[in-house]
């Protein structure tokens, strides 16, 4: 099982449709994650944001170290099976798919 985890800053709703205008980036990434989860067997997608899942940040040493050092601007962090694949930005669907492709067949991590 490959795990894709997104560590995000504190936010009200991760869907992006909770404000006056939809947050394009969040809408996009939410849709991308849903689609990836449907398309890839054996991929488990989860999202942690600092407001709602602070424990997960604190329990994951590399993440809490990064945030402590750089502040929340280092977020979002994308992790595929313990390996950090992106910092400070959301990946697109294509990029996420590529990262998963790289991780899935070989199961190196």
């Amino acid at each position, binding site marked *: 099982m490959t795990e894709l985890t997104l560590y995000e800053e504190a936010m*009200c709703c991760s*869907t992006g449709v909770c404000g006056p205008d939809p947050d394009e980036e969040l809408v996009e990434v939410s*849709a991308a994650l849903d689609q990836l989860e449907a398309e890839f067997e054996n991929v488990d997608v989860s999202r942690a944001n600092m407001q709602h899942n602070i424990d997960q940040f604190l329990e994951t040493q590399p993440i809490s170290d990064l945030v402590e050092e750089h502040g929340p601007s280092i977020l979002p962090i994308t992790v595929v099976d313990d390996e950090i694949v992106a910092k400070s930005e959301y990946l697109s669907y294509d990029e996420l798919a590529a990262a998963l492709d790289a991780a899935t067949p070989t199961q190196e991590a």
Partner: protein
Amino acid sequence: MSTTPTDARAVVEPTNEETEFVFFSGKGGVGKSTVSCATATWLADNDYETLLVTTDPAPNLSDIFGQDIGHEVTAIDDIENLSAIEIDPDAAAEEYRQETIEPMRQLLDDEQLETVEEQLNSPCVEEIAAFDNFVDFMDSPEYDVVVFDTAPTGHTIRLMELPSDWNAELEKGGSTCIGPAASMEERKQDYERAIDTLQDDERTSFAFVGKPEDSSIDEIERSASDLGDLGIESQLLIINGYLPDSVCEDPFFEGKHEDEQAVIERARTDFDADAMATYPLQPGEIAGLDLLADVGGVLYDGDEATVDVGTATDGDTETAIDFESMADAEAVADQLRPGDETQYLFFTGKGGVGKSTIASTAATKLAEAGHETLVVTTDPAAHLEDIFGERVGHEPTSVGQANLDAARIDQEKALEEYRTQVLDHVTEMYEDKEDTQIDVDAAIANVREELESPCAEEMAALEKFVSYFDEDGYDVVVFDTAPTGHTLRLLELPSDWKGFMDLGSLTKGAAPAKGDQYDEVIETMKDPERSTFAFVMYPEYTPMMEAYRAAADLEDQVGIETSLVVANYLLPEEYGDNAFFEKRRAQQQEYLGEISDRFDVPMMLAPLRQDEPVGLDELRAFGAEITGLDDITEETEPEVTAS
């Protein structure tokens, strides 16, 4: 008239081994605390171990029982089997926020924490915290019965029911709009149990307390139907504070008495509750064990109420309200009149204080004085139509008076507009990105689903509210704000959302386009030259305290100062010439003094009328009496309505 006390008794009296719960719901000022205290006292007197829980932010239990109570469960000195606790809902919300923030201290610096804290300063969080208070006491096996002087609303329960869907939501690691999913997960079972108990009519009774007024009964029917949708039945209706027949000795008060009895009759036929009971208005405030026992006796034992007016005036005949010295007509008019730019008037206050009438009256007078005026209601009950006797719709339309338009925010339409806007935005966004392999339809369907949330409703209402700041062509826009805490929520949200957007933009660069528009609206509301916040209340303890607290919140949270108060329903001098009304007047006088001290702003004084003004003629006449605007209306001939 003869009540059916045994029915009321059957509702509140425990019958099971397990602890039972009685919730009293109703607007401030209807005597909810009194009824709760009387009920708790009656239960204790009947040998039930009883706990009374109040979450009133300005509790007056200590006045009622003559004893300090506070945040710990405290035994009531003179009543065996009775304990009480006062929970401060603000403190509870703050505690909840701090618990949420605490673990973040390790990772975030002060500035970042502050942003998170501001974000948690939301109505949703307050509702969760308030619900926590109920949950905490819904596991109290040491008591036979727990009486709450407040009840969760349908809205709160709907929020808290989401837990049933949380499993799915939590597994996705997603978060709901209502708070820290992680910390709520621990309480999930408690919430579920609490909601089960709330829905179990063997263990839980919901009772409404209201005044003998149509608006009060309408409001209760709405709330009850909200609860009904969630499988919660309202079992008891208590109508409190009707005028005793014996003291109504002139046509004015005889008329009032008749109106009230008609409302009570209507409630008896219309309201689908197992039991109904009534209690009369007393000449003074209800405090002390004797009066509490009287209330309990009337409600649950079928006793006759004792209305002891005592001797007329004990040496203090100077109870006439000195309108002249208190009301400064010119100062009031100053607060209403527009300057060079569009003026925004907000009439705020709890339901039943007469806001819509006051707002419509002011709007009519301003229009009459030649100012292009728009009056907007956010009240779902849409009283404006009744007041003007004209159709009032979602878009501003004329209501007959030259220069005057009215509009009503239609929640459903506002929500539809908001949904369309968001979906259009998302669709457009994907149109520009042809290179992705994303399933656009699925993505849009997702968003559509997300828009089925309570948050979307809030946003929609806010959007509509903000849009009225962009209406062109008006000198004055008068808001008759919604009668619940909803008003404050609407007003506070701009600041909350600004915090939200700032937070979002920390990493995402550009602030959403709406940010500037919201900033402008907040700035306008904060500018005393352009905006007037008027609190409408009647001179009694609870309405005054509620208004005062709401005003303090506005100032603390949004930086908006109150600049006018309207004291409504003042007893007229020319009627009610007996000891009963003398005492009522003396009491009003006392609270008027206190309102004046507390708020220290110009005061508009509005008398109790035989009937509320309806139609333009009556509104104009009433306005001449109370707004101080009459001196500027001379010679303004009606013109053809421009807008």
